[in-house]
């Protein structure tokens, strides 16, 4: 699967971008040239040798804040996505196999989560668990989980009623075997798409929550937080939201690109795609030596 994703140019670009983002998340705080929390009198300056991306309304170095904030931003959105994945996809697949009662209860739970007002619920749970990025992201993940529940359930349902699963059962397969061998491959692509989408949503949520003072405490930087704080001073520094916005966009875009690449290479259509590319490449390879030989 990984090799097939990398065979696509879009898959390669996505992986490269995401590796860079991961690199930022790991080394960002170390790379930051200045203390991201140190304020100064030079507020809202433009780009300069000392401050490559200028300073914010408290005179803090924007580049340092961007680099330092990448770890919390990336970890936060990953936490949202993984929580949603575990809380949603596992019961989604199992709801098809574990009988009527489990199916009914999980379906109603998913409905309930969808119906809950998001912010109110987040504030209430954080009041209960204490204010912190982990708690906030956990709550967000649970609230997004119905997406994974629905996606994985729908994919599983279509597989579970198929004849090839019945054929496997007639050959003596157990539920575990069927899920591992037949269901997983069909459920993986839609889940991967949902995961990439959720990571993107996670970035936006971290920033909105920061803006509201939930989760991340104000001095600690995040990409979303930078975007929010800079927005207030648009008249003084109109290009300021550009850097955090571009970072968020590129990351979300790379996630979606990866999701598309996974979808494209999995299944029958994907195989045909890869084969076509191979065939075309073969033709080019054959075509190239000929003029060289003639020359």
């Amino acid at each position, binding site marked *: 699967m990984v090799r097939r994703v990398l065979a696509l140019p879009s898959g390669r670009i996505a992986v490269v971008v995401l590796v860079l983002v991961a690199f930022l998340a790991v080394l960002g705080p170390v790379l930051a040239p200045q203390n991201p929390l140190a304020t100064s009198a030079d507020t809202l300056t433009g780009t300069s040798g000392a401050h490559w991306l200028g300073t914010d309304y408290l005179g803090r170095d924007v580049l340092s804040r961007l680099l330092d904030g990448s770890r919390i931003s990336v970890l936060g959105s990953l936490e949202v996505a993984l929580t949603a994945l575990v809380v949603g996809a596992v019961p989604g697949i199992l709801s098809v196999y574990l009988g009527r009662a489990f199916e009914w209860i999980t379906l109603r739970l998913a409905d309930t989560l969808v119906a809950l007002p998001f912010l109110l619920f987040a504030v209430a749970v954080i009041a209960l668990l204490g204010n912190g990025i982990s708690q906030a992201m956990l709550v967000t993940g649970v609230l997004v989980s119905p997406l994974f529940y629905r996606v994985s359930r729908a994919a599983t349902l279509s597989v579970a009623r198929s*004849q*090839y699963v019945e054929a496997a059962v*007639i*050959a*003596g397969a157990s539920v575990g075997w069927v899920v591992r*061998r037949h269901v997983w*491959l069909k459920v993986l692509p839609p889940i991967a798409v949902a995961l990439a989408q959720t990571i993107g949503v996670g970035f936006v949520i971290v920033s909105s929550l920061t803006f509201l003072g939930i989760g991340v405490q104000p001095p600690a930087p995040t990409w979303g937080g930078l975007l929010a704080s800079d927005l207030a001073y648009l008249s003084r520094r109109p290009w300021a939201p550009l850097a955090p916005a571009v970072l968020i966009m590129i990351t979300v875009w790379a996630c979606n690109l990866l999701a598309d690449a996974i979808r494209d290479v999995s299944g*029958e259509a994907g195989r045909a795609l890869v084969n076509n590319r191979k065939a075309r490449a073969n033709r080019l390879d054959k075509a190239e030596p000929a003029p060289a030989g003639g020359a």
Partner: protein
Amino acid sequence: MSTESTAAPVEPVATTPSADPVSAVPSAEPVLQVDGLEVHYGLRRRRRSALGGVSLSVAPGETVGIIGETGSGKSTLARAVLGLVRASAGSIVVDGEDVGSYSPRQWRALRRKGVIQYVFQDPLRSLDPDLTIEASLAEPLLLQGVSREEAATRIRAFLSRVRLDEELLDRLPGELSGGQRQRVAVARALVTDPRLVILDEPVSALDSANRVQILQILKELRAEGVALVFISHDLGSVAGIADRIAVLYRGELVEVGAARDVIASPQHPYTRLLVGSAPTLHTAAADRAERAALRALLHA
């Protein structure tokens, strides 16, 4: 209405299946013995009968055609024998074992032995579109606990019997022709050396050349002593290969007999309609008026 001598109305009750279904069969212990099998669907008021007391036996090396229209219960019969549907009465004995009261675990153990196999009607839907042909063929062997290497060699040794090329092994079902796919579906059922294979309309969707090829494969199989049960709506598609034919109508076997007898001198009106409806090269066997009379008789 021109009712000829052959179209004389016969009371459906007068032609019950022969009392001893094993009669036409060489003396050997049957691979499949079904007695008084009843299957019901739905609960309480909505409960309706899908099979009402079906008795049938299949000997090793014998080919039996089960003919019936949509809703006659022919698929239910197959599903009951495979343990996918629970019987409400009667007994099913597969290879000497009474499977009527089997638990899911016992069923799984029996299925893993690969004694009884099933070929679906539509190979495109019964083969996982994301698994290569090799993976699909290996599945029944892997479930038996055979190692991957062993499965690979056994599959390769098997391919020539179903006229498949080795290079097809790493293709996906979608990349094969209809005839190749059906041969893969047949191969998957045969890799475990079953003693009984149930085939649901295995040739209906195929054109002549592929149809002949599949039937030839099955004939070779029969010669090796494997029992075959053909399920079809079309008497014509099993006529050339079945030793015996059983006609299922509204959940009951209305006629069982040697293929030649059932086709040449059908007794039950439904069987007569079946024979009269099947297109042959000389137009249908019965004329339009005769068919109309039989339809009226059956609907009365």
